Each structure stands twice: as structure tokens, then as C-alpha cells.
């Protein structure tokens, strides 16, 4: 298939339909409405259902129903709407039901603003509802990844029978980039655990309720085993000039794009700087972070929040190296200069070696 120029938000819906998604239940909210609007247009054409729910609470519970019946389904929202969905996500995680939730983040807390922030990390990655559960979270940094990771989200949701988030920000949703889709579409089929209204599936029980303590504990142990398996098999990250880096930048989503520019600038100056970009936020690439700690002298975590992912980086580094933090909030974006300033300070403080000439560095690394 040829590459088409499109917005990340549109790529999500096209990829979802190709992945066999046939149910979209949403409620308008900026900056996620575009996904909902594209779904309103395309889902019926693909023979699926689009419904504008009366609230986010309703939308997530519609997924609860649709997913129980074995339909691949999704919703899209943003900060305040995601908060409202947390109850449903908790139920679905408990009942082991797959679904895909696109969170196109905005500023918070509360109404915040419409600017891009990464402050949903805690409520999305750490399981914002009640109970001992986790959700898989994928963090694209381009329109192409919006498509690829949407497809992956449906795969993982089914494989692990769990809600999966696609967490991006308004920039990536709005950005027009060439996008290529898979050659073949996934044909929707009903999983055998679903309650599909057939004789065979009549006995299937989907529930998050276990009145017996031991029975609930068994379910929870099984959930934890699934999360452990996801950590082993699904962790993804991108290493960008980071294998020999002495200063390792860590950032996801749109920040990853900025950090690539910072990395190139630093490399052009002959500085061994690299980027480790988490693509899965849960499972978090903690082994990768730990591996980088062996050759890094310091880490710089950059986030558009008060510092949420940095907690996971610190846990992975486990005190072995200093972890610096650079951030902006309120919809502001960290600048290259702001990050460079910290990088240059760390270069001094940690006696980071600098290649003889920038030219040499370029030859060595590019």
C-alpha cells in the first residue's frame, strides 16, 4: 500500500478498522474529537457501529458490553473524560475484557486547558481505577506510529484480554505525515470466551465479582501473571544513538521528537548523548534503562508534566546514576535550548568525553 498524507488522529481510525475494530463509542472532547468524528464517518462504512454516547461513563460501559459479546471495540477521549472512564476500565480489567482506549492528552488537573501535556501518565499507566490491575499503554511519537500502535493495541488487548491504551498528545494527533497501512485487514472473529449468544458460549461467565476471598485472590494472581508475561514479551523502546551514550535522554511521545533533535545537536558537537524512547509505558522498558545505566554517567528525563514517568526511570536506575529532570507544564513544550543547557552542565559535572572534532563525531555516528 502506498503512503498517504494524513493526521495521526485519522490514522488511528483507519488502522483500527483494518485491525478488525467494529465498534466505536465516544463522547466529544478536544483534542480527541477528531478521532471520534473520523470514526463516525468511517465505522458505518466498514459495517461497524458508531455511537455518540451521553457521557464518557456511558461510552466505556458500552465497550464493556460490546467487548463481552466478542467485538473488537474502542473509544477516544482526553484527560477529564479518561478520569470518568476509570471505573469502567477497572471493571474490564477485572473481567479480563479487551478494548482500546485512545487518550489524546491535554492540560490538567480538572479542566486545565487544551494544550498538550503528559500529565495523564499516572492515571493511565498506573491503573487509575480501583483494584490491583494494570493496563498496557502504548505511546506513539508519529502519525505512522499512531497507525502501527493502534493495530498492535488490538492485538495485545486480545492476547492479554485487557484494556489497552494508546496515549498520545494533541501534536501527534494533529500532525500530518505520510502513513502506510498494512496490506491485509484482520477479519473480525469472535473469541471463544465471549458471550456471543450461541449455544457454545452460553456457559461463559464474564465478571469482576468474586465474593470468595480465595477465588478473587486466584483471579488477581492470574492478572499479575499476565502483566509479568507482558513485561517479558511486549516491552518496546527505541534506542537513538544511545548504545554508547554517556548522557541518556529519556522521553516519550512528542518529547521523543524534541529529544531526537537535541541528540543530533549534541552529537554534532561531538558529545556522546543519546535517546532512549519508551514506546510501551506499561510494560515500562526498565531493563533497557538499567542496561543503559551501565555506560551512562547521567540520565535526563524530559516530560510535559510535573514528573510522572521519571518515577519509573528512577526505579529502573535504582540509584546507580543521577537522574535529572527537565519539564514544562500547562501546555508549554520544553525547548531544545532548555534541555541543552542541562546536558551541557552534566557534560561538565561528569567529565563527559568529547570527540576531537564534530566532524569526526559525525563520521563515527551518523
Amino acid at each position, binding site marked *: 500500500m502506498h503512503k498517504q498524507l494524513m493526521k495521526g488522529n485519522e490514522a488511528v481510525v483507519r488502522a483500527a478498522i483494518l485491525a478488525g475494530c467494529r465498534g466505536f463509542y465516544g*463522547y*466529544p*472532547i*478536544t483534542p480527541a*474529537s477528531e478521532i471520534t*468524528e473520523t470514526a*463516525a464517518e468511517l465505522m458505518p462504512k466498514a459495517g461497524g457501529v458508531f455511537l*455518540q454516547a*451521553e*457521557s*464518557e461513563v456511558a461510552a466505556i460501559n458500552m465497550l464493556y458490553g460490546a467487548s463481552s459479546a466478542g467485538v473488537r471495540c474502542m473509544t477516544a477521549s482526553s484527560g*477529564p473524560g479518561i478520569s470518568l472512564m476509570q471505573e469502567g476500565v477497572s471493571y474490564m480489567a477485572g473481567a479480563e475484557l479487551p478494548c482500546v482506549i485512545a487518550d489524546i492528552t491535554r492540560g490538567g488537573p*480538572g*479542566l486545565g486547558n487544551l494544550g498538550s501535556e503528559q500529565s495523564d501518565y499516572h492515571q493511565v499507566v498506573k491503573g487509575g481505577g480501583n483494584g490491583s490491575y494494570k493496563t498496557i499503554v502504548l505511546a506513539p511519537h508519529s502519525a505512522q506510529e499512531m497507525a502501527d500502535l493502534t493495530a498492535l493495541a488490538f492485538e495485545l488487548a486480545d492476547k492479554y484480554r485487557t484494556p489497552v491504551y494508546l496515549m498520545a498528545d494533541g501534536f501527534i494527533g494533529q500532525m500530518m505525515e505520510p502513513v502506510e497501512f498494512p496490506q491485509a485487514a484482520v477479519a473480525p472473529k469472535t473469541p471463544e470466551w465471549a458471550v456471543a449468544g450461541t449455544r457454545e458460549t452460553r456457559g461463559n461467565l464474564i465478571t469482576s465479582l468474586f465474593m470468595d476471598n480465595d477465588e478473587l485472590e486466584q483471579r488477581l494472581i492470574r492478572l499479575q501473571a499476565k502483566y509479568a508475561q507482558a513485561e517479558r514479551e511486549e516491552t518496546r523502546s527505541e534506542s537513538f544513538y544511545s548504545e554508547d551514550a554517556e548522557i541518556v535522554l529519556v522521553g516519550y511521545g512528542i518529547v521523543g521528537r524534541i529529544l531526537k533533535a537535541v541528540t543530533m545537536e549534541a552529537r554534532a558537537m561531538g558529545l556522546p548523548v543519546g535517546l532512549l524512547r519508551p514506546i510501551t509505558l506499561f510494560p515500562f522498558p526498565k531493563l533497557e534503562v538499567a542496561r543503559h545505566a551501565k555506560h551512562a554517567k547521567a540520565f535526563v528525563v524530559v516530560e510535559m508534566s510535573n514528573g510522572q514517568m521519571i518515577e519509573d526511570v528512577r526505579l529502573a536506575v535504582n540509584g546507580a546514576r543521577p537522574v535529572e529532570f527537565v519539564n514544562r507544564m500547562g501546555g508549554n513544550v520544553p525547548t531544545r535550548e532548555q534541555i541543552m543547557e542541562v546536558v551541557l552542565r552534566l557534560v561538565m559535572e561528569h567529565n563527559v568525553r568529547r570527540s576531537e572534532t564534530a566532524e569526526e563525531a559525525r563520521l563515527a555516528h551518523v
Partner: protein
Amino acid sequence: MATATATPTPKVNRIGLPILEYRGGKSTLCAGCGHNAISERIIDALYEMGVEPERVMKMSGIGCSSKSPAYFLSRSHSFNSVHGRMAAVSTGAVLANQQLLTLGVSGDGDTASIGTGGFVHLMRRNLPMIYIIENNGVYGLTKGQFSATADIGSKLKTGVINDLPPIDTCSLAIQLGATFVGRSFSGDKKQLLAMLKAAIAHKGTVLLDVISPCVTFNDHEGSTKSYKFMQEKDEPINEVGFVPSFEEIDVDYDSGEIRDITMHDGSSLRLRKLHEDFDPTDKINSVRTLMESHEKGEVLTGVFYIETGKPTFIDLLNIVDEPLGQQLESATKPTREIFDKLMNNLK
């Protein structure tokens, strides 16, 4: 020869304030948006009624409509709350301070979908407040998706047609227990102003559903919430007049056609009959009339239901008159004697 140009003294209302004191910030809504006209009428009503601006608590949810309290009554207290939660937040605020006049502005999206749960419970509690829905049939702020008050057959600019029945917030409110319910149109200055003034005089929940066209997303051919549609289909059920308690009632009218209703503060709501057999104090009759109007494709406006004298939620809760946050310690702190007695009882 020098002429002394005396600055004319500005016109003031009965508490000595010029209308300027009732204005708000400059509107950031689209020019021509119905919500702007409603803000103007709110200003006029409070000015003419001589309400002290500081005595007003403005509540709202989230939406273009919910932004509008910023554009009237800068001198009042304002609470721009949560999408769909104006009812609940207002309940908390009104119970905390029942001495203020509470005026809430919500939208059809804010009220009739995400906020329905809170809305119906506010109505059944008869909490004393004015609840205005600026109804344009769409979610203006998120770029014009249909709301739950959109009529069957109404068309969006994109060509999408709504095929679900609208929620009639007025008949809902009447059924649930609101005590003053009516519908108006942002373009009908006279009717809206009279209804707002009566609303200020009422004690209990007032629900005013005001059709307020969204010029950007829902004012085209095919829309049932456009200016044009309203000009054609607006069907007043009664002519609404209001005589405040501080004005003389002029007796020059044909009493057979007019129903005079004495409000809590002694004002008079005067409804001139325009439809045979319509009685705004008969719930069942009102709801039936509203349902029949849907069948006929008319947009009924006017006062649909009024019930004076029903206990409000404040009466039922039997709470003290003073704001809860402003109670004097002398009133809330038990004396040593009472405290000791209480402790002894617990022994």
C-alpha cells in the same frame, strides 16, 4: 459665551445603580450567538429588578453557554464548574449559602446528556435556583456535534441527520417537581425578559429552556434550532407579563383572558391566554400540551408550569438561614454546660 455642559446623570435602577454595574467582560463568543442575547436579557432583568449584583451567585458547567456568565454581572460571584455537574456543584453551593440568588447557565449538551443524572435530581429537590439551558441543539464548544435536544430530522452542516427523539427538559422538569418551568427564545426580547424577571421573584427551582441558535454550527437550512426555524415555528402558549412587587398593577385589561399569579415576593406573573384549555398550574395538562406540540412540530414557548408555595429543598432540610460558612462561633459552639451534659450522656 461659555456653555456649561453638565454631564447627564446616568439612569439608575431602584437601588441606585446604573446598568453599567450589571455588565460583564467582553464576550468571546461568536458574533450573533444566541447566548450573547441571553446575557443581555439577564443583565436587563437583574437591573430592572434592582438585584444587588453582589447578592448573585452565577453557576455554570462547561460549554460556550457555560462560558457566558463571564459576560454579565462582573460584580457577582461566579463558579464555572465541571462538564455536566452544574446541578451537583450548585446544590453544594446553594446549601452552603442560601442567602444569595443562584443563577445557573448550562447548555443542552452539558445538561441533557452528561448532566442528566444531576439535572433530574436537582429538579425533584426543588432547590431554589434559576436553571437556564441555552439550547442550540449542538455541542458548540466541541465544534457542533448533535446534542440530546436535537430534533428528529434536524440536519448538521455535514449532512448528518438526527434520528433520535429529543429530550424535552421542560416536560421532564415539570414531571420531576420543578416549580417554575418555561421555554423562550434568545431572539424574543420581551418574552425572555418577562420570564427572567418572574424567575428572580420565584422561590424554588426555575427551569428556563431558552432556544439559542449557534450561528457557527447550527443555524443553516435544515436545522431546527436556527433563527429562521424559530421565527417560523415559535408558538407562544401564553403572553408573559410581569409586574414586580414594587410597581403598581395597572388594572386596564380584559380579566377573562389573563391569569394573574402572585409570586413569593408579592410580584405578579400575568399570563395572557393564547391557547384554549391551557392551564399553567395543572401538571398533567402542561405535560400533555408539550407532548402534543412535539407531534405537531411546533416549538411552544411561554410559561408552562408554575406552582407557588411548594416547600423548597431548603425548607425540607430545615437548615439555618445564615450561610453555613459564616456562622458565628457563639452560635455553633456548645456551652461548657451543654458539652459536659453531652459527654456525660455518652459515658
